[in-house]
Structures are given as structure tokens and as C-alpha cells.
């Protein structure tokens, strides 16, 4: 069991925000209207109901989580709705001390009853909450006082605080949820820095400052600084970039092809997040012929030179993967020697060992987008050099995901994956024998044991050791092998300040501390 067995650990929480980042010289200015754009419209503004990772661009502005985390995914009480917490192991539980004086956008108070309501709402299967799978370790919730609440756990939950930093920890107004029912998703009421002022279906979401917001900056100034935010939907990346250039929008994430021109343009500032995503990964169905043979999977991997893909598709603006699914910047990341690297001679040798010296044929699936299609073409050409023939099927990401992981129609899926720095999330979904994203579902008690062990420690060093062991195993078996780690590039004109605070641990935008140097000039 846990090295901490039985010992209580207290995580002290500061009541006043003291952030790790150095203080800025210039005093922040209040006011202004920030216009940003994103390529997808939200599925829902209710964080727990949305079924798209991109929804976070919207809900991060509207909600706070019970536990917030800094970019390294270390819990940060100063920006969390819980000011401190205590983890106990006999019985397993986490007790939270809640922030006082916080109100939801509808005016109702945030308290222990609200926490209980929100957790139980996620656990109720009828809610259809997306984070439910990562929260079922919670057995029950006890209200211990107006601002004290305990989550009773079925087993130790090492990933718990990190899971609560994502949608699972988002707090909605129980009154608004009950009153609006199924219409709540478009009229959400959180405690976050901005309130929803209007939604134009498929076009834009308009947010206004929550004047009652509890958050403050290092100097004690009330947050947020901005009066208004408009998040526009611009589906085409080329158009999105030209909107940024012409000043139609103020902040955007850049496509790789435009990074170098913006770097040269001195009117813009660029912030980067290395490891902002798994840009390109080979996911294998290890039970499907012909790639059920480990030697052939490794032969495929050894034939691929990720450097060429990074240059041709990502203009050298991404990072070559040196390990598995926990990318650069995630706490469980360590370069791994188990990763099958580029070595065509070894690839040919493995083909001979597997009795296929003249190569073999298979069909892979990839996503219908401007990065994955040309990358698949390059992969096909590289495989042909060692004698392997790969056919490519191109499908919309949702359909490809469903057909690969559940329809079991392809032995290989060349895709991308969001950055998710808490390893238990992917480990439970993809590596566990019954995982939702385990295409083969082969019984693997050794891997299941590692996944369960990783989630059972509260000690970070012990967790990391377990996940590195799991990582090596997955790479050695050529199961999930990343080629390229993504880098997220956020660009904004110089008048947009605190851009270094824009990206949270998940790389999504958070506008809580963004301000504009000339707020009066920002009206369109």
C-alpha cells in the first residue's frame, strides 16, 4: 500500500493569491473587449456535458474548479474553490475546506451543498456527464458544515486532485441546474470570472465580466480585468489567421504553417507551450492481423523517420517524441529508450525474423485534416522503402475513433491526442484491459496492475515510477507510439498583456488575468 499509509497529509492553502510568476512592472488596466476565435463551436457550455475537448475554451471562462492546478499540474489552492484539503487513508477520503463568500452567477451561494450536488450530478449515469468514468471512485459525499465537505472514496485516489482540476471539479449552481433542466447547457451559471451574456448558435459566445468574482491578482487587484469577451467560431484556420493579422480578433492559436511569419512580425507576441498535444501518434490494435505480431509493429515503427514529418508537415515547429503518451511538460514525462526509433536496417531484420522478408500489406486509418493526411502519405512512402505496403483510409476524427477503437476495423490508427498530463486518465482509458480506448481489449493483468497501482499512491515520486514502467511497457510493445509532440503557439498583438498567463495546464485558453493596454480602443 501507499508509503503514506494512515498518515494524514495536509496541503496548506493560501487564502490570498500568491502566484509563482514574477510580478509585472506595469499596473494592469481594467476594461475593454477582447475578441478571440476558435475553430470549433461548443457542444455545450455546461462543462460536464460537453463531449468535445475544445469546449474548455468556452467553459474555462465561466467556471472555477474545486481544485485548480498550475501549468505543471500542481494543485494551486490560491485559484481553487477549495482553500485547503486533507487526504485520509483509513477510511479513504478527501476533506475540503471551501472558499467563503463565493457566489454563483445567479446570486446563490457556493457551499458544501453545492459541492455535493455537483459531484452527485456527475455520478448519476442519467446526467450523461463526460467525466463520470474518472470519478466513479467516489462512493459518497458528506456535508460537514457550510464550508466543509468530504468525498468518501472506494479506494485510494492518487489522481483525484488532478481529476478535480478538470471538468470533474467544475462547480455549477444547483439552483440554476434544477430550474433550467436541459436548457442549462446554454445558460450556465458558474462562479468564474465571466458570465454568459449571449450565444449566437454556431457563430459566437459573448461573455461579460462577473463583477462579483472572488479572484484577485498578486497585488490584490480584483479579477478579471476585461469587461467583455467574444469567442467567435472561425472554422477555417487560414481565415482565422488573417482575422488575427487584420485585427478582427485579438488572440488566436496559430497553425504550424503560420508560426514563422508571426515570429518575424514585431507587432505580435507569441507564447508557446511545448507538449501542448500529442500531435501525431501511431495507435495499434495489437490483436488485429497482421499487426498482432509485435515484430511487425516494431518493423513499422523502425521504418518511420519522424524528423522528416516534423520538417514537412510541422515546419520544424513541433517536437520529436522521445517517449510515450505523457508528453514534454507533463510531470510523468521522461525520455524513454524503449521507444522504437528510426532504424530501417532493424526494420528489415524484423521483417525477416517474422518470416516476411518481402514485406506485407495492411490498411491504416487517419483523420480527415490538413496535418494527418499528408503525414500519412509520407509514412506510406517510408514504409514502402522497407517493403511494407500501407493503404490509407481517411475519415472524420469521430468516425475514425469509433471504427478503430470499437469497430475494430483497422490495425493502425494514425491520429493526434489532447495533452492530458494526469497519466491515470489515459492509462485507465487506453491501457486497461477493459478501457474505452483499448482497441484490442486483450486480458493483461500485468498492465491492469500497473494502472491500478499508479492511481493508488498519493506520493508523486512513487506514482511517476509506476507510470514510467507502464510507459516503457507500452512503447516496447509498440502499442501507442507517438512520433511528434505538439507545441501550442498563442499569438496576440502587443497591446494584449499577461499572455504568459493564457494557457493553463491543459493548454486551453484562460482569460482570467488577461488585460488590454488600450482598453478604450478595443471597441469594434
Amino acid at each position, binding site marked *: 500500500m501507499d508509503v503514506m499509509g494512515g498518515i494524514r497529509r495536509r496541503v496548506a492553502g493560501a487564502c490570498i493569491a500568491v502566484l509563482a510568476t514574477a510580478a509585472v512592472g506595469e499596473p494592469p488596466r481594467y476594461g475593454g473587449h477582447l475578441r478571440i476565435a476558435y475553430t470549433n463551436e*461548443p*457542444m*455545450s457550455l455546461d462543462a460536464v*456535458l460537453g*463531449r*468535445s*475537448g475544445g469546449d474548455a475554451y468556452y467553459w474555462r471562462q465561466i467556471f472555477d474548479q474545486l481544485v485548480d492546478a498550475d501549468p505543471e499540474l500542481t494543485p494551486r489552492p490560491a485559484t481553487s474553490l477549495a482553500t485547503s484539503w486533507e487526504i485520509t487513508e483509513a477510511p479513504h477520503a478527501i476533506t475540503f475546506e471551501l472558499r467563503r463568500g463565493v457566489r454563483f452567477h445567479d446570486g446563490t451561494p457556493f457551499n458544501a451543498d453545492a459541492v455535493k450536488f455537483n459531484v452527485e450530478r456527475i455520478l448519476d*449515469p*442519467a446526467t*450523461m456527464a*463526460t467525466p*463520470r*468514468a474518472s470519478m*466513479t471512485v467516489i462512493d459518497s459525499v458528506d456535508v460537514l458544515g457550510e464550508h466543509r465537505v468530504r468525498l468518501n472514496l472506494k479506494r485510494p485516489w492518487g489522481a483525484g486532485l488532478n481529476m478535480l482540476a478538470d471538468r470533474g471539479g467544475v462547480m455549477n449552481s444547483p439552483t440554476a441546474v434544477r430550474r433550467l433542466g*436541459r436548457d442549462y*447547457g*446554454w445558460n450556465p451559471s458558474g462562479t468564474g470570472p465571466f458570465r454568459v451574456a449571449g450565444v*449566437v*448558435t*454556431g*457563430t459566437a459566445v459573448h461573455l461579460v465580466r462577473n463583477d462579483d468574482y472572488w479572484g484577485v491578482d498578486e497585488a490584490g487587484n480584483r479579477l478579471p480585468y476585461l469587461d467583455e469577451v467574444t469567442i*467567435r*467560431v*472561425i*472554422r*477555417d484556420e*487560414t*481565415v*482565422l489567421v*488573417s*482575422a488575427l493579422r*487584420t485585427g*478582427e480578433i485579438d488572440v488566436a492559436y496559430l497553425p504550424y504553417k503560420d508560426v514563422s511569419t508571426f515570429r518575424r512580425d514585431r507587432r505580435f507576441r507569441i507564447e508557446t507551450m511545448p507538449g501542448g498535444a500529442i500531435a501525431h501518434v501511431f495507435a495499434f490494435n495489437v490483436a488485429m492481423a497482421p499487426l498482432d505480431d509485435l515484430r511487425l509493429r516494431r518493423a513499422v515503427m523502425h521504418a518511420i523517420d519522424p524528423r522528416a514529418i516534423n520538417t514537412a508537415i510541422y515546419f520544424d515547429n513541433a517536437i520529436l517524441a522521445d517517449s510515450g503518451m505523457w508528453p514534454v511538460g507533463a510531470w510523468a514525462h521522461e525520455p524513454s529508450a524503449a521507444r522504437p526509433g528510426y532504424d530501417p536496417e532493424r526494420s528489415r531484420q524484423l521483417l525477416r525474423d517474422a518470416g516476411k522478408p518481402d514485406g506485407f500489406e495492411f490498411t491504416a486509418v487517419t483523420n480527415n485534416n490538413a496535418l494527418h493526411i499528408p503525414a500519412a502519405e509520407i509514412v506510406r512512402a517510408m514504409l514502402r522503402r522497407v517493403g511494407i505496403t500501407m493503404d490509407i483510409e481517411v475519415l*472524420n*476524427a*469521430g*468516425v*475514425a*475513433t*469509433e*471504427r478503430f477503437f*470499437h*469497430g475494430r476495423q483497422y490495425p493502425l490508427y494514425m*491520429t493526434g*491526442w*489532447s495533452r492530458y498530463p494526469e497519466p491515470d486518465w489515459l492509462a485507465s*482509458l487506453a491501457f486497461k484491459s477493459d478501457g*474505452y*480506448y483499448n482497441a484490442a481489449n486483450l486480458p493483461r493483468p500485468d498492465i491492469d496492475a500497473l494502472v491500478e497501482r499508479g492511481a493508488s499512491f498519493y506520493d508523486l515520486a512513487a506514482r511517476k515510477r509506476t507510470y514510467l514502467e507502464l510507459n516503457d511497457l507500452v512503447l516496447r510493445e509498440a502499442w501507442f507510439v507517438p512520433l511528434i509532440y505538439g507545441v501550442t503557439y498563442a499569438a496576440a498583438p502587443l497591446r494584449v498583456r499577461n499572455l504568459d498567463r493564457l494557457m493553463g495546464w491543459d493548454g486551453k485558453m484562460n482569460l482570467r488575468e488577461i488585460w488590454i493596454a488600450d482598453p478604450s480602443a478595443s471597441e469594434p
Partner: protein
Amino acid sequence: MWRYLLRRLLQMVPVLLIVTFLVHGLMHAMPGDPARALVGPGESLDEEQLELIRREHNLDRPIPVQYAIWLGKAVQGDLGRSTQNQRPVVEELRTRAAVTLQFGVVAWIMAVLIAVPAGIASAVYRGRPIDYVATVLSIGGVAIPNFWLGIMAILLFGVTLGWLPTQGYVDIFEDPLEGLRYMILPAFALGITSSAIIMRQSRSAMLEVLAQDYVRTARAKGMREKAVIWRHALRNALLPVVTVFGLQTGRIFAGAVVIETLFGIPGMGQFLVQAIFMRDFLAAQGAVLLMALAVLVANLVTDVAYAWLDPRIKYDDR
């Protein structure tokens, strides 16, 4: 007339039934588990939740039964809720249809404004350079796919010249000038094919009318050419143009599917494309139902307009 109208309205019912049943069948014929297809890539729902989705949408029952349940609610005006964003489909369709309607009307007006004068000019000046130019342009207009024209228009007017916005939409009733600026490029791309067809139609109709006896009589009376064309010939020459209107409604919806996606316009076309990609079957069925209804109504309006335009046409009540 009224009995004719009633008969025509009743005839719509089987057409709508067939169309919606086909769409229903096709959406469910796609391989894979429709419940799982509702989960976005990288997200997950557990077995218990998937089971609830299947039960809520009757996915565990035979397709005809599912259709019958949908139909029973649809006739009461309930098209269900989008399986993706949870909004009532009727409400979504209302906002999206308003967008497509605005944009279809602008496309249609642009098409007529270009096509009818061009058609008349090329009939009146038959065999002269203006006729050849108009003919070549109209053949081009029919042959060039509208998405290609749309991309070229974005590149030229949006990116190179920077005159017009290329993405998005502003409600024309809220800000008419800005709304129109956003509308010009997509409406042009959408309307150009219709424009080419209407031009060909009005040219040949005009030629035919100009050869009629009454036109010769008018001319013989010493009437000025302008008055002959505008007062006597045009009204009769417009009849085939009205026919094309009915046909073009369908074309505008079909074009909207492509053009709205290209220009980021949140209308019916984009809605349908997304619904299909996301396998949001209730949304797709609702959208197709509305589009089919619109085409049928447009055809009916066309037929009624005939009688009004041409006194020789009467719909018998016998």
C-alpha cells in the same frame, strides 16, 4: 383552385414520408455503434451511460419502430433534441433556417439581377458580341462548381484585395450594411449557377416571345422598341424564369451545404453537414424534413404563380 391546392398539399405527405424515412434509414445504416458515435474523439462514456443513450433514443429497437416513434412526435411539432448540443432541434432549425433564408434570398436576387437583364440583352442583341460574351459566361457559370468559385472569391476579394469579410455572418436585420458585406461573396458563389441557368432561360424565352405575332403588331403600330420589350414581351418571357425559381430552391439548399461550410455561415447547410459528421440523427432528420418541405412549397408557389402571370393557365376545380 382551392381543390387543386388541397390536392397538391395532400400529395406532399407521401413525399415527405419517403424522404424522412430514407434519411432515417441511411443515418442508421452507417456502420458502427450509433451511441458510441455520439462521444467525441478523446472523450468517453461508460457502458451504463451508453445503455441510457440507447434506451433514450430507442436505438435498441428495429429501425421502422424508431422511425414511427420519431414520426409520432414530429407531427406534433417535436423533432427531439440534438444528440450533440442538447438543444431542441426545432429551435435550432428556426435560427438556422432564418440564416439560410436571408442568404438564399440575397443569392436569388443577385442571380435574377444579373441574369434577367443579361438574358434580355443577349436576346435583343442576338448574334452581336454582347450575346456571345453572355453565352460564354453563362456556360461557364453552369460548368464551374460553386465551391471552387467560392474559394477563388475568398482568395481574390478576401485575402488578396481585402475588400470583403470571408467568414461568418451578421444578421441583415440588425446591421443591414454589414450584413450585406458578409453576404456578398457567399451569395455570389451560391447564386452564380442559378444565374447562368436563368440567363439561358430568359434569353430563349425572350427570343420566342419577340417572334410572336402580337410583338410584330406592336412594332407595326409604331411603338418604340423599349416599350415593346418592357411592356409587352417581358411579362410573358418571365414565365420560364418562374419555373426555374421552383427548381432553384432545391439547388440553393444543395449549394448552401457546401457554401455555408466554406464561408462559416451558421445556416441549415452547415447544420446538416455537422449533424451527419457527428451522427446527430435527430438533427439530420429534422433538417432534411425542413429542406424537403421548403422545396415542395417552392414548387407549389411556382405553379400558383403561373396562373397569376399567364391568364391562359387555369387550375381546374373539376
